[in-house]
């Protein structure tokens, strides 16, 4: 018993409530009908129940420690919950039924005048269990009993009920062809400040600007943790590389730790140099632009990407900026708003976000051209083979087909396969006629 008292369980509020929120969100996403989902009001009741249950469990474990297998249930009354929530007992009963349907409450037992006993889903409860050890000095040590799965963990926002919106399937908006209207006319000169209607030109751009944007493009900065730097230094010393080891090289070849703030600063400086070469900005304006970019382009660092993904994303952003520069050079009528507006999240009309579609279209075009070239080469192979020429003249028809098939499987494009088989059919027909 003494051993049990020293090793009691402790439930962490934050972890359990986060689990609960994740569970409810997952449940709501799975439900197609709005009536089957857990409403925000019901969520509030669940939160209250879980909170009170945790309080009870922590108190019980202090008095009489228990195991996870025989956990006591949540003892409560409908009326007390109703009083706490500020609703009627009937509402609490309805919520309880709905929660049982959603498998948040796995079991309920009526105890007559003693109220209710409820058991909440262990999937919600067990992740927040801590093992509390009391040492001889009276110090409390907490260790997680179930190892947290950090790979799947999300940066959950605060416990705010989510709005339950349905996807608009009736929307007729086709976003594939909106590229043309990116350069719509400005609302007014005062609003943009950069467009002159008399000359129909962007006033910021005076004279020709070189399109060699590569020279401005900064390298992606990499920040290494100080501990890792120490380690790498030690390894270098062991390898007798000498005291004058170049730290800069290490920074560029180092494996870990991209600072997203630095990425953002690089992007801002590059975009301003390329898109607004003659702009003059003071300190607070620059800060404002950085804030806008941080929010709109880097999504306030809410997205959890790996280092490689961030590097790719940064490269794509530079590419998009270059595309805008080329578009501006193509015609003097083309213009973009001030940087403060251009990188604004809510600028749906002519903001930087629209260039994503440009980029997509460009990439798909590139891929299509590449595929067409591939098909052309294969066609040529087939026609040469039928004439007894070409590099595959010594191979059989089956061998050639197998080679092509392997190549096509490597590409993994169904449309390309269809085109190839169409060509192959033609070839087999002509070759059989000749035979």
């Amino acid at each position: 018993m003494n051993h049990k008292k020293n090793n009691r369980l402790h439930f962490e509020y934050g972890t359990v409530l986060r689990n609960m929120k994740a569970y409810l969100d997952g449940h709501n996403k799975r439900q197609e009908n709005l009536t089957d989902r857990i409403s925000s009001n019901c969520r509030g009741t669940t939160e209250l129940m879980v909170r009170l249950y945790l309080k009870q469990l922590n108190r019980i474990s202090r008095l009489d420690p228990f195991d996870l297998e025989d956990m006591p249930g949540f003892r409560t009354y409908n009326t007390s919950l109703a009083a706490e929530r500020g609703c009627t007992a009937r509402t609490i009963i309805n919520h309880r039924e709905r929660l049982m349907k959603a498998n948040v409450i796995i079991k309920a037992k009526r105890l007559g005048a003693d109220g209710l006993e409820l058991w909440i889903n262990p999937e919600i409860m067990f992740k927040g269990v801590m093992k509390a050890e009391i040492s001889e000095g009276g110090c409390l040590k907490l260790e997680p009993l179930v190892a947290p799965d950090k790979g799947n963990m999300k940066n959950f926002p605060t416990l705010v009920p989510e709005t339950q919106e349905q996807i608009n399937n009736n929307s007729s908006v086709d976003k594939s062809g909106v590229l043309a209207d990116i350069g719509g006319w400005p609302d007014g000169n005062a609003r943009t400040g950069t467009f002159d209607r008399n000359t129909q030109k962007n006033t910021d751009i005076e004279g020709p600007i070189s399109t060699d944007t590569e020279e401005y493009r900064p390298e992606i900065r990499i920040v290494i943790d100080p501990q890792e730097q120490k380690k790498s230094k030690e390894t270098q010393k062991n390898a007798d590389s000498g005291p004058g080891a170049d730290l800069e090289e290490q920074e560029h070849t180092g494996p870990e730790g991209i600072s997203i703030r630095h990425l953002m600063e690089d992007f801002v400086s590059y975009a301003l140099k390329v898109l607004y070469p003659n702009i003059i900005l003071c300190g607070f304006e620059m800060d404002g632009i950085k804030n806008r970019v941080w929010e709109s382009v880097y999504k306030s660092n809410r997205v959890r990407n790996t280092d490689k993904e961030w590097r790719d994303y940064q490269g794509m952003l530079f590419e998009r900026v270059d595309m805008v520069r080329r578009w501006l050079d193509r015609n003097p009528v083309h213009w973009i708003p001030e940087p403060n507006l251009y990188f604004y999240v809510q600028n749906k009309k002519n903001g930087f976000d629209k260039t994503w579609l440009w980029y997509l279209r460009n990439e798909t075009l590139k891929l299509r051209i590449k595929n067409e070239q591939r098909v052309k080469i294969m066609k040529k192979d087939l026609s040469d083979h039928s004439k007894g020429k070409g590099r595959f003249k010594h191979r059989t028809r089956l061998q050639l087909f197998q080679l092509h098939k392997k190549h096509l499987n490597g590409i993994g494009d169904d449309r390309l396969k269809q085109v190839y088989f169409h060509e192959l059919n033609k070839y087999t027909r002509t070759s059989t006629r000749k035979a």
Partner: protein
Amino acid sequence: MNEKERQQALTRLWVKFKDGNKVHFYSRDRKSRKQKTDREVGIGRLKKMLFTTFRGKWEKAWFYENRPQTLPFMKYEDGKRVDL
């Protein structure tokens, strides 16, 4: 604009008009009465006034922080931004 509002403004604009007049304007930095002051709001409004109501009528426009003995942080001359 009363004296108190002038004192509480965050930004001050000095404008020299083409007819020789020189006037100080003070920013209104709140979007509504109970909101916090926002410097960008005030500057945006002053800019709007310069480029719409007084368009083509002024030579110089210098933006100051509304404190005594400060240097301008933004300058416009003949409708164009000028380096400090």
